[in-house]
């Protein structure tokens, strides 16, 4: 991408005010978005994002600069401008950076790179999803399908001598359906994705995907409003893992922990969850949406056991916050693009399989809620308070799944919920999402098997 010489000069310029660490992140990112609305191709937007981010750390202070101009002059000027913020620029003879190229075996092999596939083939795949969405239920009034493809090449180099490249290819398909009965509208959607090329669309049963989304919309159209109360809740596998991601995951990132802005700061070794809970962040899972071969600081991604049998074992840590905490980084340094400095973020974060049979979990409940599909929500990482919407819910009565209900939301606190997970099933699956934080929006997986929370406040009418 850029030569060692140019990078070396840029790093040297960055250290010209006595910074102790400098890093260059070159980002060349092709994006393609196709939208099919009511069966017709509405838009085909593609573009190339390209830029270079330069980071300088002096003690615990940092400066970040970025530019699209990759000429030597522009890079060294940008580096010097950033360096100036940290101190006076000096002519330093002693800076000698020895860049050693390192090659990483790509853990996520790609078969069909998006640019090599004909657009007509992509549209054909989308039309399969669309027909699945509209051909099975008469209540479906609208369906939109979106195909997303990304091909990102990065080069990461730093003053410790690192010089390495990586390529990330991702594909994702979204389907949104609206079911209508003339008075009410209900939405049903699905959006699977992976760190894969076009071959991903051969692995998904696309018609079934569309039909599934439509079915959700139709079921909810005919559902009653959920009653309010504090009751046991069973959360289905896959995207149900978003509860752990929001309620606990962010609070385990060094981004908050390092400054004491987390409910879990200073608690390594403590029993913070029920002994049934083992939670892991694993960036190495082959071809998964949130995976990486190397993170955006150039470190190999890892499997990090965060919580084991309820005991807090580890945080997710990036280089700078690792310095603040006196702890080693864990391969979780991530950023949306060259426009952001990296910070610790999640990859594929999930609750591991437990020992309870799924049927036993449902059977254990006399009166409760089965949250089959979760929606969005928000969390205050400082207090740990969170809220979520349940997109598709069903009452559980006398050990069986009963009527569908809508309009349910779950509210609670991160510390509380971990202690209240008292049954963990065996059907671990993952759900894809985009996670937003101070280093931008990044792809992450959430995941879990079917779990039971013995008590949560369900907000309804």
């Amino acid at each position, binding site marked *: 991408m850029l030569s060692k010489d140019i990078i070396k000069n840029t790093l040297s310029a960055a250290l010209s005010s006595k910074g102790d660490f400098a890093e260059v992140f070159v980002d060349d990112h092709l994006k393609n978005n196709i939208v099919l609305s009511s069966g017709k*191709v*509405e838009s085909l937007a*593609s573009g190339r994002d390209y830029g270079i981010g330069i980071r300088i750390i002096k003690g615990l202070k940092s*400066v970040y600069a970025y530019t699209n101009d990759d000429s030597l002059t522009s890079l060294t000027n940008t580096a010097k401008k*950033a360096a100036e913020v940290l101190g006076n620029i000096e002519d330093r003879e002693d800076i000698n950076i020895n860049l050693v190229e390192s090659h990483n075996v790509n853990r996520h092999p790609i078969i069909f790179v998006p640019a090599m596939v004909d657009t007509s083939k992509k549209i054909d795949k989308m039309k399969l999803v669309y027909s699945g969405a509209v051909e099975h239920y008469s209540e479906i009034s609208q369906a939109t399908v979106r195909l997303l493809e990304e091909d990102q090449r990065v080069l990461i180099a730093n003053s410790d001598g690192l010089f390495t490249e990586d390529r990330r290819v991702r594909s994702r398909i979204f389907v949104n359906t609206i079911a209508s009965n003339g008075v009410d509208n209900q939405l049903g959607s699905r959006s699977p994705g992976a760190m894969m090329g076009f071959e991903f669309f051969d692995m998904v049963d696309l018609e079934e995907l569309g039909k599934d989304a439509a079915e959700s919309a139709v079921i909810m159209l005919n559902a009653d409003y959920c009653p309010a109360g504090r009751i046991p809740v069973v959360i289905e596998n896959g995207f149900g893992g978003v509860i752990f991601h929001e309620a606990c995951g962010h609070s385990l990132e060094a981004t908050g922990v390092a400054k004491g802005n987390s409910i879990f700061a200073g608690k390594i070794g403590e029993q913070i969850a029920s002994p049934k809970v083992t939670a892991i962040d694993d960036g190495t899972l082959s071809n998964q949406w949130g995976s990486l071969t190397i993170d955006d600081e150039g470190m190999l991604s890892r499997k990090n056991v965060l919580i084991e049998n309820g005991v807090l074992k580890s945080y997710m840590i990036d280089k700078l916050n690792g310095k603040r905490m006196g702890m080693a980084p864990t391969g979780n340094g991530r950023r949306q693009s060259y426009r952001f400095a990296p910070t610790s973020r999640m990859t594929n974060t999930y609750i591991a399989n437990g020992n309870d049979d799924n049927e036993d979990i449902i059977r254990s409940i006399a009166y409760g809620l089965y949250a089959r599909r979760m929606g969005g929500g928000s969390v205050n990482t400082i207090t740990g308070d969170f809220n979520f919407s349940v997109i598709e819910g069903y009452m559980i009565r006398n050990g069986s799944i009963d009527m569908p209900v809508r309009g349910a939301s779950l509210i609670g606190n991160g510390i509380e919920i971990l202690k209240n997970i008292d049954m963990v099933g065996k059907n671990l699956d993952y759900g894809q999402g985009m996670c937003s934080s101070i280093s931008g929006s990044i792809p992450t997986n959430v995941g879990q098997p079917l779990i039971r929370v013995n008590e949560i406040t369900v907000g309804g009418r």
Partner: protein
Amino acid sequence: MEFLEFKNLLFEKAKKQGFSEYEVYYSNKEESSINVSDEEVEGCSISSSRGAFFRGMIRGKLGYGYTEKFDEDSIDVLLKNVRECAEFAENDKDEIIFRGSDEYIDVAIFDEKVNTLTMEEQVNMAINLEKRVKEISNEIERVAGSVFRCCKEEISIINSKGLNLHSKQSILSCGVVPIAKEENNMITDSEDVRSIFLSDINIDRIAHNAVNRVLSKKQATSIRSGRYRVLMSNEVMGYFLNVMKSNFYGDLAEDGKSLFKDFKGRSVAAPILDIMDNPILGKGLATRSFDDEGVPTKPKYLIKNGVFLGFLHNLKSSKKQGVKTTGNGFKGNFSSPIKVSATNLYIEPKNVSFQSLLNSMEFGIYITDLEGIHSGADPITGDFSLSAQGRIIENGVFTRPIKQITIAGNFLEVLRDIEIVGDDLKFNPYTIGVGSPSVIVRELSIAGEN
């Protein structure tokens, strides 16, 4: 490659490949932002970025794409993507590339002072802001952080029909978050100022306002649920109008996503209400001489005497509805296609002082903060249910501060229930161009304690 060289090569290749009309939209942005904590620079970001968005007609259909890389290879990839976009898109053929006009109005949206503003001066402003806040009151326990940002953007729109427009804009912003402690909780708020001109950034005033905001929340409690007469602060009303403004957009109206569809010429609000979109407003954060299609902008009323006069349009949406463009064709970002967007959108102030507004409240609630506006308010239905904070007003005087309440209702009902409009027009720093004076709303549903 410099932009001019890039553009010439791009146009040359486009013509050779059979594009009949084509246009490039170029943006060059320089930004710096400083985060200060404990009177020291904690983080700082400096950037320079540029991008080009190309659209062209080929065999009667329009395609588009963008790039942030400026070399010959990127031009080839860009044109290939654009041709594909044109080939497969089944959208209608109402896209227009504009030849230009003689009617552009000059606007002042660039402060030359930003060219000589050094990083050191910016750092000092952020540090002094934190210091000032602490000096003003010892009830302020600490400052979460203070921020200073400076942004310059140059835009060029050039096309094969002879359009050749350029503009340069500066935006500065500065803010601080003080924290006060009371018994068991922290009270906090933020004061931010955003302006085209450096001279509008007054550190002392920002510090005083920030401290006042926080201290006026001390000992806030909730209030009994019920329906109350409400005085919406200018900031809150502007923030609220900002979420609902998409109802004025012609392209969304076409898709059935506007509450005002089929309301042209009809009363939609109290007769006292006038709402205007003014792209040439002096010091307006959204002030522009031309929209992103190169069409000259002009001020227009959306609502006058409570009557809805018509939608905002760009070339494509106006053609679909058989009307003229209103010069409101904008992109969210250089890399996105043209949609319809407001410029400086506001409720026109009337000649009623804030004290007079207070005096006309025998018992009511002054709303000063709204939260959760992006999930709790739906512009398509107009329904909203939002977390809020404020103060009680009794016989024209502020009594106790309130928190932990929600206000709920519907946008159209609010427009019809506005009784009095004040004179204190303010543009909310978070909304880039949307503003309002303080207004009294006859009645809103407030949920608090039982």
